[in-house]
C-alpha cells in the first residue's frame, strides 16, 4: 500500500532547467506519476522527474535543485518530483540514505573528497550505488552517529557531520499547526500516506483545498487542530496516528491579541464574550457536558481556552463556542465586532471626490494603484484617453466616473481590478442623503418566483 511517490518531494508547477540546456535530455515516457516514481527509484542515476499531469508524460532527470548548473523555474505544465533523500537537510534513522550536500563536519572542518586518497587513504570508493559524491557527508558504514566524512585536516582522519535527526531538526510550538518539518513517519514508525493521495485511506484534506495547511508530500501535519501533528498511515488497518516531534523550548508570544474585536478568523481573540447571539450561554471549555469535545484547555495551552469565552482554537471562520443548549453543539460568535482593517487615511475629499486631485496612490487595503495609462495588470475601461478632463495623472486616486463611494484606482494586484482609496470624506462634506427623495422603482426580469409555498399552505 506504500506509494513509490512517498520517496519524492513534489514542487507544483515547477520545472528544473539545466543551464546550459542538456543536449541529451532523456526522452519522456507515458504513465502515471506513481509509475514514473517507480522508474526513477529503480534507476541509479535518476534523482528527480518532471511529470505532466495533462499529457501524463514523465521525464527522468539526473539532477536536483541542489545540483550545480540547474535552476528551478515556474511552469504550469509540470510538477517536479525530487528524491527526498537529496533534498532533506536532516537524517532519518542512522542517515545511511542521506544524500544532502552538507560538506563540513560538526566542528566546521571541510570534508575530503571521497574520490581523493589524500590526506587520508581509505576504502570507500564512490559508486552510483553507495551515493558517495564530491565531499558530501555520507554514512557508507551505517555508523550510529550518522553521516560523517574524512577531513582535509591531516591530523583528524574523520569526523561526524552532526546532522540532526528530522524529528529534532525542526521543533514545533503549541499544537504544531505551524509545523513544516520533514518527519514522515508516525510514533510507531509507520510511514505516512501522502496528502495528495486517497489510498490506502480516503480523506478530506486535499492539499489544493487547504493551501494554508502546508500539506506537502507525506509529512506530518496538523490541519484539523488535533493535539499534535499526525498523518494518515500507509498501513490500511490504521487510518491515522500522531508523530513524535520535538517541542520547542520557548513558547511563542501570542501575536496581535485583540479583546474588543476580532481580526481575520479571530484566532488571537482573547476577549470575554461568552453568550451566543441567540442568547444561549457558552459551555465551559473545561467541561464535557452537555457536549463532549477534545479541546481540553491543558492540551491547547496557546489557545487561551479560559472559562466559557468565545475562542477559535481550530481555524474556523470566527470565534465560536460549544453552547450550554443540548440541541445546539456549536455557535459562531459573529456578533463580536470585527477590528477595522483598512489603512488610516491621510487626506479627505469633498462631495464624491470627483474633484480630488491629491497624491494618495494606495487603496484602503494598502495595495499600490496601477498607473491610469498602464495596460497591466488590468486593461482599464477608463484612462486618460477616455477621460482627458479627469486629471488621471500617474497612479493617483481619482473619481473619473463620479462613483458615489469616493476616489478609487485600478490596482497592481492582479486579483483586484479596482478598489477604493485610503481617503475619507471631509467632515461637513454635504452629500444629499438617500432619505431625502425616494425614486419610483422599475425592474427588468429578475426577482420572479414561479411558485410560492405560502400559496400551497405550508
Amino acid at each position: 500500500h506504500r506509494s513509490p511517490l512517498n520517496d519524492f518531494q513534489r514542487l507544483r508547477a515547477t520545472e528544473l532547467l539545466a543551464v546550459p540546456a542538456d543536449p541529451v535530455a532523456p526522452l519522456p515516457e507515458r504513465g502515471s506519476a506513481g509509475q514514473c516514481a517507480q522508474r526513477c527509484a529503480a534507476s541509479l542515476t535518476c534523482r528527480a522527474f518532471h511529470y505532466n499531469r495533462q499529457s501524463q508524460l514523465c521525464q527522468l532527470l539526473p539532477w536536483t535543485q541542489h545540483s550545480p548548473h540547474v535552476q528551478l523555474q515556474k511552469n504550469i505544465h509540470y510538477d517536479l518530483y525530487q528524491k527526498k533523500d537529496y533534498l532533506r537537510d536532516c537524517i532519518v534513522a542512522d542517515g545511511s540514505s542521506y544524500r544532502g550536500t552538507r560538506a563540513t563536519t560538526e566542528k566546521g572542518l571541510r570534508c575530503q573528497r571521497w574520490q581523493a586518497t589524500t590526506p587520508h587513504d581509505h576504502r570507500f570508493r564512490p559508486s552510483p550505488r553507495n551515493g558517495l559524491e564530491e565531499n558530501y557527508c555520507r554514512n557508507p558504514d551505517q555508523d550510529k552517529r550518522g553521516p560523517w566524512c574524512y577531513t582535509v585536516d591531516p591530523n583528524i582522519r574523520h569526523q561526524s557531520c552532526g546532522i540532526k535527526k528530522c524529528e529534532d531538526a525542526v521543533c514545533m510550538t503549541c499544537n504544531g499547526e505551524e509545523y513544516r518539518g520533514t518527519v514522515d513517519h508516525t510514533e510507531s514508525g509507520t510511514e505516512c500516506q501522502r496528502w495528495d493521495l486517497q489510498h490506502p485511506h480516503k480523506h478530506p484534506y486535499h492539499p489544493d483545498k487547504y493551501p494554508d495547511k502546508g500539506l506537502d508530500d507525506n509529512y506530518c501535519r496538523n490541519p484539523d487542530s488535533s493535539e499534535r501533528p499526525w498523518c494518515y498511515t500507509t498501513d490500511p488497518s490504521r487510518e491515522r496516528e500522531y508523530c513524535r516531534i520535538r517541542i520547542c523550548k520557548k513558547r511563542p508570544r501570542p501575536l496581535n491579541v485583540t479583546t474588543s474585536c476580532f481580526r481575520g478568523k479571530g484566532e488571537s481573540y482573547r476577549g470575554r464574550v461568552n453568550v451566543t447571539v441567540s442568547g444561549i450561554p457558552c459551555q465551559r471549555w473545561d467541561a464535557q457536558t452537555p457536549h463532549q469535545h477534545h479541546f481540553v484547555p491543558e492540551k491547547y495551552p496557546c489557545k487561551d481556552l479560559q472559562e466559557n469565552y468565545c475562542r477559535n482554537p481550530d481555524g474556523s471562520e470566527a470565534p465560536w463556542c460549544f453552547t450550554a443548549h443540548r440541541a445546539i453543539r456549536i455557535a459562531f460568535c459573529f456578533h463580536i465586532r470585527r477590528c477595522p482593517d483598512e489603512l488610516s487615511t491621510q487626506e479627505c475629499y469633498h462631495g464624491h471626490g470627483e474633484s480630488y486631485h491629491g497624491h494618495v496612490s494606495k487603496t484602503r487595503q494598502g495595495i499600490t494603484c496601477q498607473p491610469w495609462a498602464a495596460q497591466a495588470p488590468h486593461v482599464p475601461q477608463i484612462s486618460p484617453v477616455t477621460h482627458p478632463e479627469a486629471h488621471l495623472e500617474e497612479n493617483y486616486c481619482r473619481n473619473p466616473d463620479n462613483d458615489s463611494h469616493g476616489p478609487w484606482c485600478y490596482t497592481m494586484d492582479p486579483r483586484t481590478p479596482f478598489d477604493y482609496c485610503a481617503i475619507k470624506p471631509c467632515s461637513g462634506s454635504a452629500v444629499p442623503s438617500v432619505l431625502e427623495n425616494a425614486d419610483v422603482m422599475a425592474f427588468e426580469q429578475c426577482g420572479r418566483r414561479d411558485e410560492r409555498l405560502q400559496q400551497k399552505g405550508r
Partner: protein
Amino acid sequence: IVGGQPGNSPWTVSIRNRAGVHFCGGSLVQEQWVISTRQCFSSCDADLTGYKVQLGTLFKDPGPGDPDQQTIPIVRIVCGPSESQLVMLKLSRPAVLNRRVALICLPPERYVVPANTVCEIAGWGETRGTGESSVLNVAQLPVLAHGECNAALRGRLKESELCTAPLRAGVGACEGDYGGPLACLTADCWVLEGVITPSRVCARIDQPALFIRVSLYVDWIHKVMKM
C-alpha cells in the same frame, strides 16, 4: 431564522467552508455573483479555495440524491465600500437558473423602500427551536421608517442602514443567517433591499433589526460585475 417557518427563497444561498459546513448566507444577484456580508469573511483578500455556495435545495445538509442541488466553488471576494459591510463573491461558474434557483432584483440606486412594506428574511441559521432547523426558514418583517428607527436607536442609525420593526413574537435573523437577504415584494418583483448583519441579540422584541441598505451600493455592485 427565529420565529419563521420553512419556506422557499430561490436566490438565497448557503455559504460553506472547506469542511462543507454552512456558516453564512448570501443572495444570488447574477448567475456568477453572490452578495453577502464582510463579517463572515476573514479578510478582503481571503484565500477562498475550498469554499463553496450551495443553492437549489431547501435542505441545509441535503442527501446525495437531491436533484436540483448546485454546489459551486467561490473564486474571489470583493469588499464593498468601507461603511457598507458588503462583499461580492464571484463563483467559478454561473449558477443554472431553474425552478429552485432564481436571481433577485437589485433596487434602483439610492431607492428607499417605503415604511410598512412587508419584507422577508431567509436563511439556514439558528432557529432557537422555533422552526425546522434542517431546512430553509423564512419570516416576514415590516420595514420601519428611518426617523422612527433612528429615535428608537437614540440617533445612532446610519444612512447605510435599513430597519424592520420588532415583532412581539420575537421574529428575526440569527447566527448562520448573516449575509442573507431582506427581500421585499414590489411591483410583483422580489427586490434585495437589505442584507442581514450580526446583531448583539437575535430577534429582539424591543428593538428594531438593522440591515445593510443595498440601494446605497447598487452602483458599486454593477461596477464590480462590469469590471
